[in-house]
């Protein structure tokens, strides 16, 4: 086991930790930081339940080493709501029945967050394409597409700028 020191910003909070070099990012997030909203579904970069934003870009944290996040900024599902106020994407998933069992939801919301910032006017087909690296076994996806479409109409661009700024580690 080789131990390394990393410094990462998670949800705008700085963490300095000593970790085993083989530790996966998802285990660092879940076990070391106790942020269990990010899930593991397939271990092989297929299902996307472990999707988080790394410097603003979506990564599947089950196949990224925690070391690779050194000096970078991570946003997880827990970093989206402002206190008791839910993020518009979270609200839209509630409103449009975008989840049933809820296990894939964190990953879906993170990928949606990335998509909406990149393409606020994404069509249904573009949304489907964007979430095709994230598996849902319950909904058949149409209500997830509904949710993301609704969220994109309700998100205020300026508000999102703050999160991006944090992710850049400014």
């Amino acid at each position, binding site marked *: 086991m080789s131990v390394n020191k990393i410094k990462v910003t998670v949800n705008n909070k700085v963490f300095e930790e000593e970790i*085993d070099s*083989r*530790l996966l990012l998802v*285990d660092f997030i*879940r*076990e070391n930081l106790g*942020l*269990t*909203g*990010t*899930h*593991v*579904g*397939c*271990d*092989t970069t*297929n*299902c996307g*339940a472990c999707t988080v934003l790394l410097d603003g870009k979506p990564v599947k944290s089950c196949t990224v080493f925690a070391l690779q996040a050194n000096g970078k900024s991570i946003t*997880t*599902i*827990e970093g*989206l*709501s402002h206190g008791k106020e*839910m993020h518009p994407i*979270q609200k839209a*998933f*509630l409103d449009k*029945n975008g*989840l*049933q*069992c*809820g*296990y*894939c*939801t*964190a990953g879906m*919301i993170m990928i949606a967050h990335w998509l909406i910032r990149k393409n606020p006017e994404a069509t*249904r*087909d573009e*949304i*489907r*394409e964007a*979430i*095709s*690296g*994230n*598996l*849902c*076994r*319950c*909904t*058949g*996806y*149409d*209500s*997830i*597409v509904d949710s993301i479409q609704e969220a994109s109409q309700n998100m205020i661009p300026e508000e999102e700028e703050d999160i991006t700024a944090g992710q850049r580690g400014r």
Partner: protein
Amino acid sequence: MSTIEEIVQGKGKFVDDIVLPGMQHMSVIRSNYSRGKILGISGGYTFKDFPAYMSSVGEGASEGEKNMREPVLADKYVNYIGEPVAAVLGKNRYEAEDLSEKVEIEIEPLTPMMDPEKSIDAPPVYPYMKSNIYKKVTLGRDFRTDGFEVEIEGHFNNRRVATNPIEPRGIVAAYEDNQLTVWISTQSVHSIKEGLSEVLSMPEDNIRVIQADTGGAFGLKGGLYSEYALAAFLAKKTGKPVKWIESRREHLMASRPGRGTSAFVKLYANRSGRILGMKGKVIVDSGAYSGGSGEFAARFVGMQMTGPYKIENAYVEAYPVFTNKVVQGPYRGAGRPEAHFFIERMIDMLADKLKMDPVDVRLINTVNSEFKSPLGMDVPPAKEFLEEAISKLNYRKLYKEKPGFAFFVLVPAFQPGETARIKIENNEVKVWLGGNTHGQRHDIFVKTLVNEGLGINRDLVHLQLGDTSMLKSGIGSWGSRSAMVGGMAVHEACKKIKQAFIAKNGIYSADALLKEGADEFVHWRGEGTMNSLGCNLVTCEVNDRGQVKVKECAAYYDVGRALSPEVVRGQVSGGMAQGIGQTLYEEIMYSDDGQLLTASIADAGVPIASQLPEYKVLLSNTRSNLATGAKGVGESPTIGVPIALSRAIENVTGVKITETPIRQELLLRSMKH
């Protein structure tokens, strides 16, 4: 139970989120061969440490003879790839996996039996058996086949499909003062408790099973598995809590898949399309041991093989057979999709033979009165519903687009009813159900029914997760039953509470009841059957690479009174995705020598968003005769969609479809000619 608001913010509490002081992680060492003789094992906990056999509990599980039962850890022989052979404990998952690498297992490979249809006549896998048929089942009465004007035959197969909930299986077990406590992702805490009690030879009173938030199940999580018994055993043995979380690869090799059923079918008819007889031979790929759903599936598939049609003569022989694969289990539909695929494919073939519209053949063979089929299924009045469906689904208007059509009976697991407990305390209502919600949002119908029954504000009503210490008995959430039978249990409990309150206080007041409190347990028993009808229509395009794009995907189902229309819509949409998945992509595939070829969730074919269409969901809100008005729904789409989609593909390509999944190479090969 975490609320949906908590889950959407990442604050759910799934089993892998549970951490106990001193908790160890279990890693399981498995067979790399589908069949072999164990020559030696060094290291780890083995059969010698825990010489126990599995019990069969949960949906459709049957015990079988004693010597057919699966050992918790393989003893002398391994009989499927992925079979647990040994286990190790580490302080975290990384250490446990390192330790598992140090366990050495020497296995002498033997030739595995991988093909269920060959298994029937092949030398038995188990020397003490006469054949690989573990129980022959016959239904209906055999009949003479001379004198029918038309006779057609078909051979069909629904290959094995993994359930693949996005949350894999998992358990945390702790043992203290003679008391075993487990937290688990499940459809039925009571089945798990019963199973653990049998395998560990522990009194049920010393076991408490608590459900964690459950991330999908689809039949997978209703029964007991070796790993659960092992984790509980090791928690007891070491005195420290044990956690086990399944990897996806383990899921694909060692958790119970569904389908895996084939059939030879003959239909006898007259030239005007009236069906006069049906004969079938059904083969269920039951896997390597009893304890799964093979025996049940054989009987259940057989029973439904005349579909909603009035066919006077019917006879089915069904064979659950052993193969060197993981034991078969229920997957959403569990026998219903298979039976209907067989009869519905035959109806379409008969229509082709007689040059009739397949929907007209369906109309000719349905009646407007209830009857019991010669194979034992109660069929509701079908003709009027079918006519309605043809019209609502626009079949005639869409005819140019070559739609496929499906008609089926949904046979829900109505008996033996379900339990519920309602406890009113501190101005709040807590509800426990015997069937545990695992993504279907049972909390919504519970709020509705308590509000209707007791006039209490929905916001004060909270469904609890399964917990055997809070509810004395329970069945489980499967077989399209929960809103129907769980709903009735809630309804009855409300009724009793209200009556008791009136008997004591004269007039009823919800506010006074909330202050006074109540605690009522009910086991509502379903008598008879509560079968209902459904139709699907699908159109598609197939490109020159043999890739299928589903265009119209529509349903018209009799769900009774939809207690929550948005939940019903979600159930239907999600089920349609699984129906499309089974038809086009999903399969658990082995090489002839028994190596697993589908070892990732992508290989196993779980569909992605860009492969799936938008759905059209139409409901016939005809109340059932239950006080709640509900009927079943959850499994309907997995029955109807594969049938309708298979036919749509047949219509578009001219390729005769006899099995699922429909492999792209089949369409590609046939289209080139």
